[in-house]
């Protein structure tokens, strides 16, 4: 009997087989061991590369689309000019709002091999990492100059237990109604007449009676429906109610303000495109662009969408802020993981993005605005200029966004997205209020690690 080894001698075959199984074992074993050997033995280093060089900066971010990629690349270029010895290793993970990157990061964190810094929305989105002690406080990065020039609520959004954990690079605005100027002109609607939610509904009624779809919504990915809910809550419930809501104080399903907000949202839904559940947020913007709908409630990244389509602000489209005295903040920040391999390079990066120079390089291209209040206005378009002035005005109330991960724990946000997505199809106010209150008790309060002070 002979094994079908094609002429190779038995002995040789045995050796190679042993070697192969050994290697397979080795790979598995090293995968298991090396993640646990922060202080461990030296023998494992065989499978690891040489000692990490200090002059590397490994960054994870999710800016992969057209304009945003150019924006972050421009910042990288400026950083390189300043620190020519630091090599930037950028790992962009596509997927809007970092939906895919969160999963990648969680596995990296659990394996104990985080990048040197990564992008994360300010506020609760970073709370799972903070609770697991996987981020380092960066109080030394926050100089007095930064403390002086960042608005107070924005600082609150990156602070946990009295420590700073992140540096914001930009500010987006969530509470904006974008409208097609041609449609408004055709039907003689004055955008300045829209001061509150009731005005908005009045305009919607008028447009609907003339056969125009008033609002475009695209909630196939669910969050755009929550986004509108958030804006309706701010407009109808007010900032005080919003603060109570995100602090988990709304625990009564019969809370009259909660019901009022849901009823207002149900009313709003009478004026949206019927196929909203099949569309995405950008397709909804597309309806406004094509003239199939007059308005859409979306964050100011819609501005980038319209510009990319060749539209001119204040000529083809405009923005109405609702409620006008509120700035609903969506903020991108960078953090310092506790087990970063190159913390010194990361700290240089964090200090750098806290400067006017970095923020005014990034934001004009990205379409957002600088978080610092001393950045010059020149490089910005008319809508951005207005937003910058609003952000710096003392009469504007700043609030962290719910939908974009800042104001509430991720577990509660996940519930809320499903609840609102159901509400959008059945408009059942009582059921929804009950579900929301249950979710507050189940997933907000147990995960609450900070108290918001907005008013």
């Amino acid at each position, binding site marked *: *009997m*002979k*094994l079908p080894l094609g002429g190779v001698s038995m002995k040789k075959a045995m050796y190679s*087989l042993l070697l*192969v*199984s050994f290697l*397979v*074992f080795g790979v*598995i074993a090293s995968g298991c061991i090396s993640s646990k050997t922060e202080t461990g033995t030296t023998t494992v280093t065989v499978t690891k590369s040489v000692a990490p060089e200090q002059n590397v900066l490994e960054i994870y971010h999710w800016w992969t689309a057209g304009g945003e990629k150019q924006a972050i690349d421009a910042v990288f270029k400026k950083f390189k000019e300043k620190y020519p010895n630091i090599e930037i290793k950028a790992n962009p993970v596509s997927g809007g709002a970092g939906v895919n990157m*969160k*999963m990648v990061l*969680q596995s990296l*964190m*659990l394996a104990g091999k985080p990048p040197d810094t990564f992008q994360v929305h300010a506020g609760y989105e970073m709370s*799972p*990492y903070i*609770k*697991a*002690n*996987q981020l380092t406080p960066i109080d030394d990065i926050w100089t007095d100059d930064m403390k002086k020039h960042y608005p107070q609520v924005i600082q609150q959004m990156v602070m946990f237990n009295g420590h700073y954990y992140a540096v914001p690079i930009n500010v987006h605005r969530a509470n904006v109604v974008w409208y097609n100027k041609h449609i408004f002109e055709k039907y003689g609607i004055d955008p300045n007449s829209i001061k509150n939610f009731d005005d908005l509904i009045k305009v919607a009624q008028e447009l609907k009676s003339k056969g125009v779809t008033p609002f475009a919504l695209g*909630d*196939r*990915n*669910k969050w755009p429906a929550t986004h509108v809910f958030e804006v309706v809550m701010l407009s109808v419930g007010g900032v005080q109610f919003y603060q109570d809501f995100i602090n988990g104080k709304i625990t009564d399903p019969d809370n009259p303000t909660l019901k009022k907000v849901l009823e207002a949202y149900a009313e709003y839904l009478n004026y949206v*495109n*019927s*196929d*909203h*559940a*099949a*569309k995405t947020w950008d397709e909804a913007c597309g309806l406004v662009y094509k003239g199939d709908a007059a308005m859409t409630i979306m964050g100011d990244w819609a501005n980038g969408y319209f510009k990319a389509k060749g539209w001119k602000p204040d000529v083809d489209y405009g923005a109405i802020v609702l409620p006008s005295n509120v700035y609903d903040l969506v903020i991108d920040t960078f953090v310092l993981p506790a087990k970063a391999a190159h913390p010194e390079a990361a700290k240089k990066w964090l200090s750098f993005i806290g400067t006017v120079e970095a923020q005014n390089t990034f934001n004009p291209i990205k379409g957002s605005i600088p978080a610092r209040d001393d950045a010059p206005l020149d490089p910005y378009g008319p809508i951005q200029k207005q937003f910058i002035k609003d952000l710096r005005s003392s009469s504007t109330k700043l609030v962290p966004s719910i939908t974009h991960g800042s104001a509430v724990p*991720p*577990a509660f946000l*996940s*519930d809320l997205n*499903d*609840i609102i*997505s*159901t*509400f*959008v*199809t*059945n408009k059942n106010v009582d059921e929804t209020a009950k579900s929301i209150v249950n979710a507050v008790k189940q*997933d907000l309060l147990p995960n609450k690690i900070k108290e918001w002070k907005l008013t």
Partner: protein
Amino acid sequence: MRLKFREESFYSLLFLTPAIVLVGVFIYFAIVWNVYISFTDWKGLIPSYRFVGLENYRILFHDPVFWTSFKNNIILIILFVPGSLLLGLLLAVLLDRKIKFENGFRTIYALPFALSFVVTATLWAWMYDPSDGVLNTLFSILHLDFLKSNWITDPHVALYAVILALIWQFSGYTMVIYLAGIRSIPSEQYEAAIIDGASSAQLYRYVIIPQLKKPTLSAFVVLMVFSLKAFDFIWVLTSGGPGTSTFILAVEMYKETFAKTKFAYGASIATVLLLLSFAIVLPYLYWSYGGEKE
């Protein structure tokens, strides 16, 4: 030549070792680990192994979203599995009629299965768009307006729309399996039946289809297992929505584990999925191996 039987089995064992080790670590150990996690209170990014018994299961069985997902999963199995089998059989029977361009048709039918679920889900999102999607536009042109639907945007229809798209994608696979099964039947049997004067309907009814038990069984298990772990297609097409109307267990497991970082709770959903697949696979093993002995 001097090798004895025992040595031979030693070699086969040796050659199998790498595979056994890999499967053992990455599948069976992972399964045991998962069941163990489901009895702990692990929440958040720091692993916690405090034993809490059946607490996660108690919460799970009181969670209405779990029951919605469970119900949807059962509906998915009941409609998707026979649907794919029947459509695949029909395609195989049609292709078996010695038609022209058989290879071309076979490729066309089998192609969807070769595509990634992310691609096909994106495609179906476009097919199902109620206002300017392919289906509704087509029905308008053909004056078949009664067939128009809101598809994935209507919570009462969405699940069935998802199942229809999945049947489309998997029927190519079952077609290939059935066609191979039909072709493996010895031609003497056809000839004998035809000489005996069997019509082609009778040929299928009495000669061919009864011999397709094996391919049916193997396709059945693949489809069953898929319907338990179907995730990517649904996630891309509807994200489980509108609301929770197209949630299935895998979608809920993903949400609980990764969006809410409730690792132990997610593990308990995974364990329920594991038990469900046992309930399906064990009878199959019994049937296929037990049946052979007779």
